[in-house]
């Protein structure tokens, strides 16, 4: 597995945390509302074949500038700025969940700034009868059920442990702040983009036919956070999009099954003629 290094990278909204590594065609990973990135072996897997860039969106983790991002449009303009500074003319763009929504917004507005689009359990749409479950008011234990198929995964275990601590008043005061700080930051930064309308842009669906780049939609079959019709709708509305379903894994597929996801992504990208 190729090495991934982390740096603070200057952008239009301040320094953002950027993970990068590997060689090959550029591939940008846009994280979910959970702000995953640290110890994400999925990035190392991909770095064997691609130049991987995984920026933390402003306000998440150690990235500054959260207060300058008021909505998805600001987030997309920030991405354009980041691409310019990294000399990324039209990278492959992969986004999970909130990051998938962000990638779709980029692709509908600036179709020339990416060469392929990979949407993994993407948010961004409102579908009556198939609403995305709440991420802003539920307990870690409730969330863990939707995010992980395998409850013994270390991240799922950490969420369950957090839940036990939070329901014990006497333990609360002893929680190291550093333990909950990343989640507090992620949720606050995500709320700026996704509180209302909740995790969607009402105008996005009718813009999807504007996407002209080769597109892959990945659906984790046990994702109970975002129901299946979301992946199906993206795949149906984006011209030529391909839908791949991965069994026995839930919403956080890049964390829970990194090797399987990187195999699916690599196979797709190998099938697409890459620009010289």
């Amino acid at each position, binding site marked *: 597995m190729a090495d991934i290094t982390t740096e603070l990278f200057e952008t239009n909204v301040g320094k953002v945390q950027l993970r990068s590594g590997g060689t090959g065609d550029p591939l940008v990973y846009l994280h979910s509302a959970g702000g995953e990135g640290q110890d994400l072996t999925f990035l190392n897997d991909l770095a064997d074949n691609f130049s991987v860039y995984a920026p933390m969106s402003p306000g998440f983790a150690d990235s500054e500038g959260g207060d300058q991002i*008021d909505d998805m449009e600001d987030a997309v303009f920030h991405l354009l700025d980041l691409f310019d500074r990294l000399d990324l003319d039209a990278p492959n763009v992969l986004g999970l969940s909130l990051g998938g929504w962000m990638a779709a917004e980029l692709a509908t507005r600036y179709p020339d700034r990416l060469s392929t689009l990979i949407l993994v359990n993407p948010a961004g749409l409102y579908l009556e009868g198939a609403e995305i479950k709440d991420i*802003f008011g539920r307990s870690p234990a409730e969330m863990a059920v939707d995010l992980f198929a395998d409850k013994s995964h270390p991240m799922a275990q950490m969420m369950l442990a957090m839940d036990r601590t939070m329901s014990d*008043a*006497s333990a609360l005061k002893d929680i190291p*702040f550093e333990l909950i700080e990343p989640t*507090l*930051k992620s949720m606050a930064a995500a709320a700026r983009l996704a*509180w209302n309308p909740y995790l969607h842009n009402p105008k996005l669906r009718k813009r999807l036919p504007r996407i002209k780049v080769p597109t892959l939609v990945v659906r984790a079959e046990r994702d109970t956070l975002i129901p299946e019709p979301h992946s199906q709708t993206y795949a149906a509305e984006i011209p030529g999009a391909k839908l791949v379903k991965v069994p026995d894994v839930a919403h956080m597929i890049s964390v829970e099954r990194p090797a399987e996801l990187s195999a699916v992504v690599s196979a797709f990208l190998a099938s697409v003629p890459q620009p010289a």
Partner: protein
Amino acid sequence: MRFFNFHLMPYPSLPDDYDGPAWVTCPNELYDPAVGGQAYNRYLDELIYSEELGFDGVCINEHHQNAYGLMPSPNLMASILARQTKRVKIAVVGNALPLYDPPTRVAEEFAMIDNISGGRLIAGFVVGGGPEYYSFSINPAFAREKFAEAHEIIIKAWTEPGPQEYIGKHYKLRFLNTWPRPVQQPHPEVWIPGAGSLETMEFVAKHHYAYMGIPYFHIDVFDRTFRLFREACEKEGYEYDPIQAGWLTPIYVAETDEEARKQYEDHFWYFVRRLLPGINISPPGYTTLRSMKGMLKGIGTFAINLKTWDEVVDGHYAIVGSPSTVLEKLEANLGRLGTGNLLGLFQLGTLPEDLTKRSLELFAREVMPKLRERFPDGKPMLRSGERAA
């Protein structure tokens, strides 16, 4: 020392078999309009009665979609009180500014109440509780920005000649020109309630407003809160005046300590176990990390975690007892906290009308005059050696 009767106007009849939250998702089919209609009128009577008993003011507040407090519009209640009382201050604590768009409406309605009452309004401004951001789908990440802009708009509307223009990030008003204007000049006294966030204290200190400490925490948490507030005033270059601080606490007085506990305890537990669940939801971005870090230590002492009456007494979560016990406890706590306003929650949970009125009477007759004597207006309140460092 000023004394206020603070009413939450709780829903007193949640069914015994309902054990869910009282906020946001508490099913509204549990609300019985016959019970509610009676409660509203009874609660207003209790507030009006406190004028007769010699209180300085009455307090009401704003909460939405919950059983804890039935006042989505405190301004409606205040307008009734403006007509049905003659002397007391009417403190609306407060309007949740980010929930009014444009906030011009707050400037208008508060001015109406101030006009009708002959200048008796105390204007409370709040960010709104955590649950409100779920109930109204308002983005909590912009709560403080919106609050700051709304506050600026209201004060401008009251103090600067219109028509004027206000162009902010969240509100863009081409013609700000409110009618009526308030009776009190330059504007009514402003109160801001807070649960301990530093930003709120700094804001209150900067504007020389009054800070009201939100209850249901261990007394040590209040101690910290008011110390931080005094420090915030010092950082602004002045020494706080006790009139700038208010302590909100449940109070119950009966003939003896024994009777007091016997009459009160069940009603208190209804409040803690049935009406508080759900109030403590904290939406993302609502509290800054800097404040969250400081508040974390106190979170475990929130009343919702109380198990036994001994804990209630030890932490001063409610001041309950005979007149002499209540006097002694209030005197000690006021001397420790240094708050020139005492905001008593006399009705709480399911406490019935007769007991509420009896408690108000005993308090007004046996406790209030002695506290007035003990803490004369315009004098420092803190006991020596306990001033902020």
